[in-house]
Every structure is written in C-alpha cells, then in structure tokens.
C-alpha cells in the first residue's frame, strides 16, 4: 500500500480504486491482457466489470479473452482541462471505441494526432503501465 501511495505522487492523473469486484480486470491489464465479463447463465457480455449480470442478475461470471481490436465510435480532442496530470497532457484524445466483441469502452487514443483520427477507424489495444500497480487500457491506430 505504501508503494501505491508514492506512485500516486508521481502519477498526477486519477487512478482507479482496485477492489475485490474489479480485481480480475485490473490484474489482466497488468499482464497486458484484455478480458471482459460474460454471464454463465444467459451469455450476456458486459462492460465495465461488475458482480452481477444486468440481464438476469446471475452472479455466475466467466472472463472472456478479447483480441483488443476495435473501431473508433466517437472522439474529442480535449484542449482545456485544469485537472492535474491532464493540463500538462493537452491536447489529448478521449474516445469511445467499439470492441470487435460489440462493447463500447471509454478510453484515450494514443500514438496519433487528433487530425489523424476518423470515426470507424480500426484501432488496437495498448497497455499503458501508469504505475507498478495499475495498467490502463488505451488504443492506438491498428498496425
């Protein structure tokens, strides 16, 4: 825990709070793997991770490995944000991408400039090790 605190000092942007409900998601990202939840009873896929299926309320969940391929659903280049960590990173691209598995995920597009981004453009997952404890799921133009 002491480590997490000192990480947070160096890393100015907000970090997620990892708990028992979401730990498998964050641990997979730390291994640079992407897993989404699938209900074992009705098969419904869901993002973000949660303890129950929203369709049938079943707690029986499996984790489905995803390829990390997606398309840009929409995006914005943020020119103004006064929050620490982000004001130094302007402009940055916030986007929804739609995974090939059909789920929309809020993320940042990286390794590209705002004027290179188009809706529908294929992108791929990149795993950004923000701190030793937290890896974030971001996307870049598919190679």
């Amino acid at each position, binding site marked *: 825990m002491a480590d997490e605190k000192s990480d947070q000092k160096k890393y100015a*942007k*907000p*970090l*997620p*709070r990892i708990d028992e*409900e*979401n730990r498998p998601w964050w641990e997979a990202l730390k291994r640079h793997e992407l897993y989404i939840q699938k209900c074992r009873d009705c098969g*419904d*896929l*869901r*993002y*973000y991770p*949660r303890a129950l299926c*929203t369709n049938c309320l079943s707690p029986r969940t499996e984790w489905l490995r995803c390829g990390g391929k997606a398309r840009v*659903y*929409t*995006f*914005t*280049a*943020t*020119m*103004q*944000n*006064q*929050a620490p*960590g*982000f004001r130094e*990173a302007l402009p*940055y691209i*916030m*986007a*929804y991408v739609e*995974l090939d598995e*059909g*789920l*929309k*995920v*809020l*993320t*940042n597009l990286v390794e590209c400039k*705002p004027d290179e981004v188009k*809706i*529908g453009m294929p992108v791929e997952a990149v795993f950004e090790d*923000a701190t030793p404890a*937290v890896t*974030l799921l*971001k996307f870049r133009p598919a190679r």
Partner: protein
Amino acid sequence: MSLSRKTALAGVYEHPARFAPNKSMFQIMAESVRGALDDAGLKIQDVDGLCTTGMGMSGMGIVGFCDYLNLTPNFVDSTSIGGSSFVAQTAHAAAAIAAGLCNIAVVVYGSTAASQRFAIGTGGAGLGGGDPCDQYEAPFGPTTVGAYAMMARRHMHEYGTTSEQLAEIAVTMRLHASMNPAAKYRDPITVEDVMASRIISSPLHLLDCCIISDGGGALVVTSAERARDLKHKPAYILGCGETVRHPARGRRDFMEMAAAQSGRLAFERAGVIPADIDMAMIYDSFTITVMMTLENLGFCKRGEGGAFVSGGRLRYDGALPINTDGGGLSSNHPGMRGIFLVIEAVKQLRGECGPRQVKDCELALCHGTGGALGTRHSGATLVLANQ
C-alpha cells in the same frame, strides 16, 4: 390516475444576481423563495413542501436549508440528478400535492458558481466521483464538455451535421439574451463569431458552451383550485416524465437520449403532441444538447436537427421559439439550470416577457438534461398550459 391540470405553478422568481461574491448560496435561495412567494401572494407560513438540491450543497443540504429558513415542511424532495433536478422536483411536488401530501410546495435553487470560480465544464474532476463506474472513466480525463463534444462528433458523422448549424443555436440564444435585461451576455454574435472562438473540446467551440454565473430561482406549486385564487393566472401542469441514460453495459446507442423516453411520457400524459407546443425551454449546456434534445423529444426526426435549427425557427418569432431568456448559453448557468426553464416558461404563458414575448403562447414544454450526454445523464420533461 392522471395529474393533468390538477396542479399549477402559482409563483415564480428568477434571482437577478449573476455575480454575487457577498452572498451565500442559502441567502440567494432564501431571497428566491421570498420572490416566488411574493409573486404568488403567499407567506412563508403557507409553505408545507420544500424541494431543492445543489452542487454546492452537502448530501443533506435540504435539511440545512430548512434550518436556515426555519421550515418544517410535510413534504421534502432532494432529488439530485444534475441540472434537470428542478424540473423533476416540480413534477414530484405536483404529484405530492395531487396525492394530498402537501398543499404549497416551493422548489428552490441557488448557487455561487461564478464567484466561487467553479470550473463547471472543464474541471476534469467534474466527472470523477468515487462510484464504481468512475474507475473506468476518470483515468482518461473526461470533462463535461468533452462528453458532449463526443456526441457532437458522432452526430456529425451519422447525420452530416455541421459546426455552423450548431452555431445557429448559440446565435439565437444570444439574440434572446439581448432582449433580457438580466442576461449576463447581451451583445449579439454571429455564426462566424462562434466558429472563430477557440476550440474547448473538438468539435465544440467556446461559444458552443454555456456560461458560468451565480444565480438562483424559485417556484411555487399548488393545486389548480388554490392557484386560481392567487395573484396570477395559473400555469397548469399537464404532463411530466423523467428517466436516465448511461452506457448500458457497453451497448448504448448514444444518439438516443433520456429525452426520448421522458418526452414520450410527458406528451402522452398531457395528451398533446410536439406540433401543439408554442414554445420550449430546452436545457442548453452546449449547442449539441439543444439539437439532440429537439430530435429526441420528437420535434424533428433523428438526424434532422441540423436543418431544423436553421433559418430562424428557434427565434422568439419563429415556428418553435426556444430559450427566450437567452438560456445557459447567454443568460445564466450557475451549474444546474433546470429551474430557469420552468420560470421562463411560466412567464411566457402569462405573457410577461416584453420584447421577447412569444405570440399567443398557450402551451409550453420544459426539458432538463442533467449530467453528461456522453456518459450518464438524466432527462425530465414538463408540459405546461395557461388554461
């Protein structure tokens, strides 16, 4: 059981303050309550229902405000669903009165957002709470304006909407503000001015965004019968609706808003259709909010918003006048604007709006959007009539 015409708005008051560094939030709220009661011809002792919430308030702020005014009401509602809260609270007050839970309810709001220097749209932390959903958003730097900007970008992609069409909305709101002495920004602007203003979050420009002001307001809800004995002609509540939208476990069609559902409910309950509406107050946090809300309420088809807002249709003298007070884009936006939607609609129904008065205004609609279109938002719709 139908609510239609059982209750009415009997008093309204918009606080004139746009920058009030010497006043507390509760003082602005209390002055607003006094204004609305004076307008109705009622006393503080008549109030037995109280509805409020606010960004600057604690979770139990309504109890603190009752303390401030020494109130012990029989009905309280602190529904907190963003800027639309006061539209929803008006409906809740009406339902409570129709059910006999109270007789005279006041809905009140006050804020010192401008003098306290809240970065309402670009604070970053504005969307970074501690709920489970926030853990998957806050790390990526979502701002309120960014969440709306993503919707504007998608709308442009799906329907060919242009920045110039969005700018038309800002230009119309400023024209209306020029006719409202209390509005914060009153100098006319052009589409070119909007296009030339700096990008805050692409594709939205500075002038596509609501302003930040202090302010407050209050309204009095009572039974139709009681309202007919008071000072002004009542504005009857015909119908209401409310709901929420969110990413829907990753499956949402983001061009569909809460307004589609709350609007349908309100129209059905009021027994009217969009074409019957004489003027509408549409929450204008950003220009895109207005365009998508008009589509989702059914004033035009989805994707036709760009053409619909052009050609002066939304002007006070156009086919569907919108936000005749100048809206959040030009008059005032203290963080949560819902109450002003209802106040201006009531003034229009009474015929009190002077140079910006809509001709033969008998049926008005208010729609509040709270939160962020691109993540989670609420929608609350009210249909009001003067007979």
